């Protein structure tokens, strides 16, 4: 029983807008299955007295005061953008024509 199926990998690739070939899907499905199986071994070690956790440190309530700090200039902000128009990030068409 695999931890992740080839179909699930294809679904995740689509959600992430990654175009994967059939060969790549085979390849990554096997790799990801190995990775997940390896990580899942943690569950074998964790006893009933170890609660599940989403953070490495037992911290809570780390806040910052509501104070304004300086932002980037638009030139800095846009410096890594593949395309710019009117000081805005230009992105490819989001949706096609209505069905």
């Amino acid at each position, binding site marked *: 029983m695999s931890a992740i199926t080839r179909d699930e990998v294809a679904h995740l690739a689509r959600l992430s807008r990654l175009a994967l070939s059939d060969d790549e899907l085979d390849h990554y499905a096997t790799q990801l299955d190995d990775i997940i199986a390896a990580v899942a071994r943690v569950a074998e070690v964790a006893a009933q007295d170890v609660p599940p956790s989403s953070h490495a440190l037992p911290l809570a309530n780390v806040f910052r005061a509501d104070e304004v700090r*300086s932002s980037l200039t638009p030139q800095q902000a846009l410096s890594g953008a593949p395309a710019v*128009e009117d000081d*805005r990030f230009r992105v490819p*068409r989001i949706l096609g024509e209505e069905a």
Partner: protein
Amino acid sequence: MTETNTLMPYDEVLARFEPVLGIETHVELGTASKMFCGCPTGFGAAPNTQVCPVCLGLPGALPVANEQAIESTIRIGLALNCSIAEWCRFARKNYFYPDMPKNFQISQYDEPLCSEGYLDVEVGGKVFRVGIERVHLEEDTGKSTHVGGATGRIHGADYSIVDYNRAGIPLVEIVTKPIEGAGELAPEVAKAYATELRELMRALGVSDVRMEEGSMRCDVNVSLMPRGASEWGTRTETKNVNSLRSVERSVRHEMERQGAVLAAGGRIVQETRHFHEDTGATTSGRSKEEAQDYRYFPEPDLVPIAPAREWVEKFRVDLPELPRVKRARLMAEWAVSDLDMEAMHNAGAVELVDATVAAGAPAADARKWWMGELARRANESGTALADLSITPAQVARVTELVASGALNDKLARQVLEGVLAGEGTPDEVVAARGLQIVNDEGELSAIIDQVIADNADAADKVRSGKVAAVGALVGGVMKASRGKADAGRARELILEKLGVAG
């Protein structure tokens, strides 16, 4: 946009179906800085001038939660009678869309900060309790402009350009439980809920809740079930309804549209719809590329929130009076009717009248000016009453000048006009425009003598006992003084001069 909706008459919808509503409201908090970084939050700044590595999602940047935003959310939850979580986390909502530069939105999933509350709203003198499912905190998205295509809409656009100034502004989402049993009042209950929620946000001082600028927006869910049925129908969600009136219209329209579809044997499609202000209709926002698979997981870059009970209780004690409770109290204090209060509420005058009374004006006078002359001028210029360039303290000063006899109503209107035109304070306008009532008895006496001489007929009538004829003489004095005479005092003096006892 060729889609047209067949509608069923509203009465017929009610005769055959029972509506069930649900409302999700997004409120942008009025914090100085963003939710997870120190960028400013002001509306209308030049594009991409309020962004940094954190809110642009650049590699290596780490978010830290804004304490003020957490506090505001807890206060909203308390005001909505919610339980406040003892421990909860942020979650990543993953989706691929250019308005979020990180390709995920930091939100909350199964551990909202506040849950299980209610808000009472009043419609037609009846109180409806709207259940609150949850109140959670997330970050707002950037703003896209769609270029090319027909109408600036996303469909058919050639490409889009994005400004991330809004991305990362703290956003509170308030979700109701299903609202059942409102029947014919459903559209009004939806509007009353949105109105009350907006007032509550104002009273708490957590947001400017300007719907026209998008700092409060509603998603309205509507479904119909046949009368007597026990299972709800399929719902639609009308997104980003951005005025109180539109909330009401969109509910009514969806009821009429769904009624027609169901009556014709059709099925309602569970979908997102868009409301059009101009036509009052909704259209389908369906797209085959809409993948609702958000793969939520706990946000690894932020630690959990565990609000201490003392902290929460301190906020509870400091909660402001609820708007509905306050209106009931003011109604009694001002001795006004239900209808008068509702008129003031709808005109956005309650807070202004209250502030004017607090500045020393009698309630009746404060109400008279705000609901009369000032409402008229706001209406003329198409501005909200609160946006007129006159303060409650200035209105109070005008009522004081009238009460002391320094101004009459006619002059007071000119003073208000001057203040609104930016000519200064009421006292400065009085001085600059020379609007003092003629208090100099000598000057008034001379004017009266002249008027009596010019109107001998009327004067004779008064002398012979027809006191009603004095009105014409008082009118003459007001005219000769260009409205600056004290009409009551003028009447006394005229009668005295003509040897008639008032």
